[in-house]
Structures are given as C-alpha cells and as structure tokens.
C-alpha cells in the first residue's frame, strides 16, 4: 500500500488505484476495471448486507472509475443509502458521489432530497454544510424547487453559524443562476445586503458573490449595497497589510473581497451621494497610488493580488466613464504595464486598454502608446498577446492614425499566425473602409490584403470593394488601373482575378486609351487566368467577357471565338455551359442598343452597413467588437449613394435590391434563372448585412422623422431597437419608449438617463425581450432643444452607449384652429412685425406629392385650411401652441414650386422664437 494515503485511508481503494496505475496498456486497464465492476456489482447484489464502510469503499471505487472517464450505471442507490449514515465520512462520500454523478431518476431524487432535508434541519453545522455543498454542486431545478425557500431562511437566521452562512449564500447563488424564477425575493433580501457589514470576512466574501448577482438583475432592490460596499472597500484599502490577519494574502489585504466589491459597484452608476462618491474616488486613487509604491514582496503572488485589485479598479473607472482624471491615470498605469517583463501583465494591459480606447476621455491618451503596441504586435512571442495587440490597434484607430495602423497590420499579416489571419483581414478591411479619405488608398489596401492573405479574404471583403468602387465614380479609373497592374503578376490569387474580372468588366474602358492596357490586352490578361480558376470565378469571368463585348466592340470576334470553343460551349459544368451559350447568342442576336441596355454599367448599390462588420461580429461573438457603429456618418460618406434623404428602414430591410444580381443581368431573360450559384452571390451578402443597415448614423434623422408623426422606430442598430409611441393633448404629452433587445444575449446594467426626470427601466434586457418606459411630458414654455436620452448597457463585455434626441418638438403641442379666409388674412396682417415672421426657401428633397404634403402638414398638428390661399397650389395652416406659460398662435404658408422643385415656407406667430423653431423643423420635412 502506498504511503501517500491520508485520513481514513481505504486500503482496498488504494490497492485498486495502484493496480490501475500499474496497467501497461489501455486494454489491461479496461480489463482490470471490468473485473472490479463485476466484483462491486456482486457485492451490491449479494445476500449479505454490506456494512457502511464497505459501501463507502465501493462507492468510492465507482467514483474513481467514473472520473477515469468510464461510464457508471449503478451504485446510485448505495450512495443514497450512505447519505443517511450517521458517520461523517460515509455521508461525505455519499454526497460526493451524488454531486459528481448527477442522476435524473425521480425516485432517487426524492430520496436524496429527503436526506438533504434531514441534514439541513439537523442543526449540526458540518452536516448542514455537506448538504448545502451538495445542493450547490448539483444545482438542478428539482433541488431549487425543494430548497429555494429554505436556504434564504438559513442564510439570514440569527443563530446560523458563519460557515453555514457562507455555504448557504453560495448555494443560493447557484440555485438563482440555474432557476431564477424559483428564488423569490422577500424580506430576506434586505438582510442579505447587510451581510456586507458582517464581522466575519469569510461571510462577506461569500455573500458578496450572491449580492452581486442579485444586484445585476434587480439593481433597485439592492441599491443600498452601494454605500455599504464603498465603506467596506474603504476600510480594506486603508488597512495596514497585517490588519486582516489570515485574509491578508502576500501582504495584500483581502484581495478577493476587494475585487468582488469593485465588481459589485460595476452593477451601478456612480454613487449619487457626494460623500459616498468622494470616498470611493479616494479608494480608487489609493489603489492607483499603491501601484506606484515599491512592492512589499518579490513573490509573484504579491504583485498578482495587488494588480488584480488594480485592474478591477480600472474596470470600474472605465465603467463610470465620467472621471477624466482617473481615466487618464488608469491609462498611464496600463501604459507602464505594456512594457512590463511579465507577459501576463502585458496581456491584461492590452486587453484593458482596448476598452479605454472607446472612452472619449481616454481615447487620446491611449493613442500615445501606439508605438509600443505596434512593437508588441511585432515582437511578442505569444500569439495570444499579439492578438490582444492587434485588437488594441483596431480599437485605437481613428482618422489620424489609420494609415499607420493599417500599414502595420498589413505587414504583420505577412507573418501572422494562421489562426488569427481571417480576423485580421476583416479588421484591416473595416478600418480601411471606415477611415478612407481617398479611395485609392482603400482600393490599394484591399488589393494588398488579397495579395498578402488571399486565402483569408472572405467573400464579404471582396464584395465590399466592388460595391464601393461601383458607388464612387472618382475611384473607378484608379481601381481599373490598379487591378490591371495587379493581374500582371505571374501568380495571383483567385480573389484578385474575381475583383479584376468584375472591375475591368465594368470600368475597363477607363484605361483602354492606354495602348499598354488596350481592350484586347485586358481581355488576354484576364483570359490567361481563366483556366486556373474555379467554376464560380470562371462564371464571373464569362460575364466580364460579355460586358467587354459591349464596352469594346473590337473584342467581339475574339471573345465570341472563346465562347464558341468546345471547352466553353460544351463545358461539363452546366452553369458555365449555359453562360457560354447564352452570352454567345446574346452577342450575335442583340443589336448594339439592346446590348448596351442589357449590359449597362451596374447601378450604385443601395447604402447599407458593411457586411464585413457583420461578419466580424459573427466571428467574434457578442460584445467582441469594441469600436461599434459610431461611424455611421463616415460610412454614409463612403458609400456615397448620393442624396437619398432620410433612409427608410423598412425598405432597406425587405426589398430585395434590384441591383443585387452580380452583373445586372436580371433583365436579360435567358440568364435570369440560370445563375443561382454565382449570379446571386451578392444577394447572399446582403441577407447577412442585418437590419441595422441604414440606421447607423441616423440618431438625428430619427429625431427629425418624428416631427410630423408620433409613432415609429426612433433608433435601430444590430443590438437594440427603440420604438416610440406618443400622444399629446394641450400642453401635456405621454411618450412610451420600447427598448427591444435584438440579440439572443442579455443586456446587463441597462440604464437610460434623460436630462429630465424619468422612471428607471429594468436594468436587464433579456435576449429577444423588450422593456418599456413611460415618459410624461409637460410643456412649460416654448423650447428649441429636445431632451437628450442617454442609454447605457453592457452587451457581452462591452459597454454600449447611445445618445439620442427624444423627438419632443414644440409643434407637438399644437391645437389645430379652423378659420375662414377673412379671419386668416386679418390675423396674418396683425402678425406683421419682422421678428414675428420666419421664412425659408429650400429645395425639395422628396417628391412633391400633394397627398404626402397634406399628411405632413396635418402631422405637424395644425389645421390645414382649404380655400384660403388664392393660389390653390399653396397650403395654409393655423394652430395654437399650448404651453403652461402661454398660448402662441401660429400661421403657416407653404408655397411649392413644382417646376423649380423648391418651396417657400413662411411662419408667423406671436412669438419670434416659435416662428423660427417651427419653420426650422418643418423645412427639414419636405
């Protein structure tokens, strides 16, 4: 028997384990195990009743066999029998077996629950703890049903031993996580919060995990924990390293508890009470200061524990995102870690800085470390650290450093690990698009991507470059020239051939004037790649060829020759064969005019969110993309779709784009049904782009869209949709805001703040769920600025922050006033002082349809007066704006000029600011 056995050593077990260890082969091991299983089975089935010790020993052997990875299908009953033994070790082994080999047999569960019930009521703290450990380890729904009521009582009872309290707290946590519906809040909840004040540090340590979880789901009920947590933290932070005795870990006072306290505070916004906040800021400063002090020990445990607290403090500072001073200090501290000799610290500093980069207060400070981060990308030996560096570069990228960062990432790609190449490619593509000032740089970057890491360039990336080139005529010539040059390389990636084929097919004419890239040269160059390509690429090239016939009639004969060759027209691939046949026919039958129509240049793609971004998100999972969509405006510029006015969400969502067919051949009847494999490639991308499409940059537009209507979608991105319903009467209004979680993941710490008072919302928005918020509005006096709504939440790890103008505008408080022509003109004349009138002349940005105009004027809230204006083309309206302070009469005249596509809008009211505001608002609506 080996000497290592300790405690109540079961000799038979030790012998068995030794035997297993001595087995020379897997087969021998299985043989020995089967022998043992047979032995145990016969013992369990035997006539002789087994004593507790033997039962314990055999159950333990079964457990060992199970943990080796073998299946065990018996012994549960014997284990359950052990639970009711009055010998501690037998009971303990019984519980261990039950916890490891959870069984769903209901009869068994009933017996187990009975045994647990007995132990819980035994008042023997060791037995109680064993039972609680078992519940916590199994955590099943059945256990929650049986004990979720009892455990809170044990937890807060005055006479419960500390050790039992600790187990009860974490046991309850496990049940709450598994079956939150079964753990009912009640009178015990307030008492749980006060465990933060418990004298026993162990009790606080255990209880705080429970409190943190409960707070994150019910912040209001637990908000008293904030001040308690702050004062506890403050006592720990300011204590000397020996004050806390055994809770001091390598000279660091209570590191686990400190981290948990800081984590709990991250469930809440900064404390409102000035004293509490001051104390907390002091704590955070002390923690930052301590980081600069010389270490009290050379042991890595000391520095790890100390830095664990520091990183948690920095997380809290980032979470608050409101103390510029602390944010910058945090950033400097992380900057020091970036050059630390400990790999772990460098890793964490890079990770933490990634979130700092998205704060407006620290973004610039993060940027100062760019050289160090680039260096890390080049020199770190651990791929996971390099990955972090790449993430950080991505997060700190903005217009000022985009060229440098993209260049560095490109050069890193040449040697990057295969595991992260695809993601790197996506990131480079996104940055290049997002920060492109001149599009030739963008085109160069993407072509470089294909050249360096062609295998990792997904379809989304090369589709995107094509979309952008098509939508930007200033870059088309450059793109044609560049792809032409790139294709000169003796070996170029198939993706390059795809991009080249597509772009030359559309814009080859732009470089055809140069004899070095004459039409025939272009064609020969493309065709030289043809035989090396896969079927979809060949299909694309065939489409490019037919486009060539249209662009350059002089290539017709050559290309028809190619199409006619057996390898095309009799190709075994049905798609290629069909294209060859149809294109050949089309080129010989159709007149030049028809051909020119059918093969016309691709129309611009509708503006939509980059499909690449969607891809990256999908790849990284929720919350992983830290630089989100705050760049809506830039993308709008980039896609350059032109003046499309206010984007219409529903259209962008559901209408399949007419230009979605790869080469716009939909209209050519023979081809339309024939190209599902290659022809519809772009359609696939679009379906992935997601509904966020047009909404990315519309925060303000959303506001303007509601001037003339009261209900609709105010905001939408990938994660969140905010809908509005509102109603107004006189100077009062009520607005319902609906926050819909579009993902399948919870939003945590969800909060909305308005610069006026509101009821708080549920802090947690389940995946797919919607929460509602009601805002009551009273108009005191006339106003210009709309209330600002600020929404914060955590999705995955990343903090999301959205600011919106609530569409509450002065016109919402209009009461329509009907009046006759004479009345109108009399009042119009009365309001003749220059400051009472506001006028705007502007170009129509939408159609000038009469019915639409009328609907909008009615939506404004005024009465539309018929037969008043002598010119029937004009519209006049009247209304009274109701504010608490006064009523403001308001007259309006809108004169459309269909020929010039212009409007003149005139507002007169008794108050100059009102005239001006209504005029400004309304002018945006046509």
């Amino acid at each position: 028997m080996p000497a290592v056995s300790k405690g109540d050593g079961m000799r038979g077990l030790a012998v068995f384990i030794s035997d297993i260890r001595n087995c020379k082969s897997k087969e021998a091991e299985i043989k020995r195990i089967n022998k043992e299983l047979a032995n145990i089975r016969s013992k369990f089935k035997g006539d002789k009743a087994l004593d507790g010790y033997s039962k314990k020993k055999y159950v333990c052997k079964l457990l060992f066999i199970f943990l080796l990875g073998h299946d065990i299908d018996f012994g549960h009953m014997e284990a359950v029998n052990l639970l009711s033994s009055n010998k501690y070790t037998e009971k303990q082994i019984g519980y261990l077996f039950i916890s490891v080999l959870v069984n769903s047999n209901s009869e068994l569960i009933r017996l187990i629950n009975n045994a647990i019930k007995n132990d819980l009521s035994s008042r023997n703290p060791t037995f109680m703890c064993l039972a609680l450990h078992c519940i916590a380890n199994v955590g099943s729904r059945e256990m929650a049903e049986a004990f979720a009521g009892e455990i809170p009582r044990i937890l807060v009872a005055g006479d419960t031993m500390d050790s039992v309290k600790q187990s009860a707290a974490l046991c309850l946590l496990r049940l709450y996580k598994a079956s939150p519906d079964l753990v009912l809040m009640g009178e015990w909840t307030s008492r749980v919060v006060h465990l933060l004040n418990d004298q026993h540090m162990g009790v606080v340590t255990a209880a705080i995990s429970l409190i943190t979880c409960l707070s994150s789901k019910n912040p209001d009920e637990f908000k008293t924990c904030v001040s308690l947590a702050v004062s506890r933290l403050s006592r720990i932070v300011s204590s000397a390293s020996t004050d806390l005795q055994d809770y001091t870990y390598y000279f660091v006072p209570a590191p686990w508890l400190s981290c948990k306290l800081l984590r709990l505070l991250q469930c809440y916004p900064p404390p409102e009470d000035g004293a509490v906040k001051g104390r907390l800021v002091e704590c955070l400063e002390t923690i930052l200061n301590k980081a600069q002090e010389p270490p009290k020990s050379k042991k890595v445990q000391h520095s790890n524990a100390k830095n664990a607290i520091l990183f948690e403090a920095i997380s809290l500072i980032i979470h608050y995102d409101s103390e510029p001073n602390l944010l910058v200090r945090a950033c400097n501290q992380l900057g020091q870690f970036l050059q630390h000799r400990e790999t772990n610290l460098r890793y964490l500093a890079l990770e933490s800085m990634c979130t700092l980069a998205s704060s407006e207060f620290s973004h610039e400070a993060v940027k100062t470390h760019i050289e160090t981060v680039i260096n890390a990308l080049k020199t770190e030996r651990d791929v996971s650290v390099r990955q972090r560096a790449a993430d950080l570069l991505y997060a700190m990228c903005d217009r000022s450093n985009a060229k440098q960062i993209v260049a560095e990432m490109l050069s890193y790609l040449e040697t990057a690990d295969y595991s992260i190449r695809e993601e790197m490619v996506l990131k480079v593509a996104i940055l290049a698009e997002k920060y492109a000032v001149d599009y030739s740089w963008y085109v160069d970057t993407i072509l470089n991507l294909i050249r360096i890491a062609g295998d990792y360039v997904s379809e989304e990336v090369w589709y995107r470059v094509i979309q952008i080139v098509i939508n930007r005529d200033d870059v088309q010539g450059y793109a044609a020239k560049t792809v032409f040059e790139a294709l000169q390389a003796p070996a170029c990636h198939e993706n390059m051939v795809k991009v080249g084929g597509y772009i030359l097919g559309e814009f080859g004419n732009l470089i055809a004037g140069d004899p070095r890239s004459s039409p025939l040269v272009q064609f020969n160059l493309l065709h030289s790649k043809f035989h090396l390509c896969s079927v979809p690429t060949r299909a694309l090239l065939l489409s490019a060829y037919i486009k060539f016939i249209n662009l350059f009639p002089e290539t017709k004969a050559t290309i028809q020759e190619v199409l006619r060759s057996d390898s095309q027209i009799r190709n075994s691939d049905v798609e290629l064969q069909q294209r060859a046949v149809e294109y050949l026919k089309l080129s010989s039958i159709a007149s030049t005019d028809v051909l020119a129509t059918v093969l016309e240049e691709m129309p611009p793609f509708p503006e939509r969110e980059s499909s690449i971004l969607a891809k990256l998100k999908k790849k990284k999972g929720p919350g992983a993309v830290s630089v989100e969509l705050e760049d809506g405006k830039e993308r709008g510029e980039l896609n350059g779709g032109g003046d499309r006015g206010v984007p219409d969400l529903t259209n962008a969502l559901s209408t399949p784009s007419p230009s979605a067919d790869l080469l716009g051949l939909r209209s050519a009847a023979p081809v339309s049904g024939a190209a599902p494999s290659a022809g519809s490639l772009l359609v696939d991308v679009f379906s992935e782009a997601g509904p966020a499409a047009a909404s990315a940059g519309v925060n303000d537009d959303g506001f303007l869209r509601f001037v003339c209507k009261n209900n609709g979608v105010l905001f939408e991105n990938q994660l969140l949709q905010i809908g509005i319903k509102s109603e107004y009467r006189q100077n009062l209004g009520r607005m319902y805001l609906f926050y819909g979680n579009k993902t399948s993941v919870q939003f945590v710490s969800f909060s909305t703040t308005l610069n006026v008072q509101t009821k708080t919302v549920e802090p947690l928005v389940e995946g797919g769920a919607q929460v509602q918020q009601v805002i009551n509005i009273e108009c005191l006096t006339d106003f210009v600025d709309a209330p600002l709504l600020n929404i914060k939440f955590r999705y995955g790890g990343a903090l999301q922050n959205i600011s919106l103008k609530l569409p509450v505008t002065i016109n919402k408080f209009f009461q329509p006033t009907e009046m006759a022509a004479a009345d109108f003109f009399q009042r119009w004349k009365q309001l003749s002082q220059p400051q009472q009138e506001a006028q705007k002349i502007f170009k129509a940005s939408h159609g000038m349809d009469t019915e639409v105009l009328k609907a909008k004027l009615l939506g404004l809230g005024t009465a539309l007066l018929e037969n008043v204006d002598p010119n029937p083309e004009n519209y006049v309206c009247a209304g009274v704006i109701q504010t608490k302070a006064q009523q403001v009469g308001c007259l309006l005249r809108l004169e459309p000029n269909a020929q010039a596509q212009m409007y003149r809008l005139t507002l007169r009211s008794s108050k100059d600011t009102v005239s001006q505001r209504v005029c400004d608002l309304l002018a945006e609506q046509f």
Partner: protein
Amino acid sequence: MQFMLLFSRQGKLRLQKWYVPLSDKERKKISRDLVQTILARKPKMCSFLEWRDLKIVYKRYASLYFCCAVEDQDNELITLEIIHRYVELLDKYFGSVCELDIIFNFEKAYFILDEFLLGGEAQETSKKNVLKAIEQADLLQEVRLHTDP
C-alpha cells in the same frame, strides 16, 4: 467560474469540477480540447487565453496543470491566485503535495475544493479556516479496525 480542471503533463485528468450544467459528452469534449490546447503552449507564454467565449486561466505546478475557465467579466489575476491558494491548501493538508497525493486521495482534493470554492465562487479565502474545517471533518471519522478484502 465555470469549471476547474487538473491534469498531468501527459494529459491525464486528475480532477474536474463543473459549476455549470453540461452533459457528460460536452464535459469530455471540453476537457479533451482544452488539455490539448494548453499542453501545446510553451512554458513562458501568458497564463491567459481566450477559448470559445470563455477566458482560460492556467498555471503549471510541477507535473500538474491547474486550469480554470472564467467568464468575460471575471478577473484573470485573481483567478490565478485562486489556483495558487488551492495549491497552498493541498500542500498544507498533504504536506508538500505531489500528483500521487491527488490521485490516491482524490476525494480529499474534492472536499478541500468544496470548502474553498462553492458554486464557482470563493467561499472562504482564509487558509486557516479552510484547513480547520477539513481537519474537523477528519476528526469526526470513527476510529475503527477492519480487515479489507
């Protein structure tokens, strides 16, 4: 914490503790994948890695790897010290612990872990208190003589 695994340099699992409900099959797959991933890493590499949607924190002590999977918002460094504290507890209880102690007394390793971590959260971080609880339990065992088959 979602789970903790102890495994040898040869990839043999020595202890596994799961704090989230997973099927036996999933557990086996996770352990296999993770053991492979970690054994493939070089000694000086960082102790943290992203794995699926979890953060893995691991450290090697002699022939044994200790590996914890924590969630996104969890603190890596403090998890590393959770591992260390557990090693200290084993060390103190067994008296310079080695892999064999954990093999032959696996049930004790589980009991100590349950006193220290429960439901994936630290229950008692004081070394003295944890060991006191275990020793009390050991004292409760009956003194008896028996002959083994």
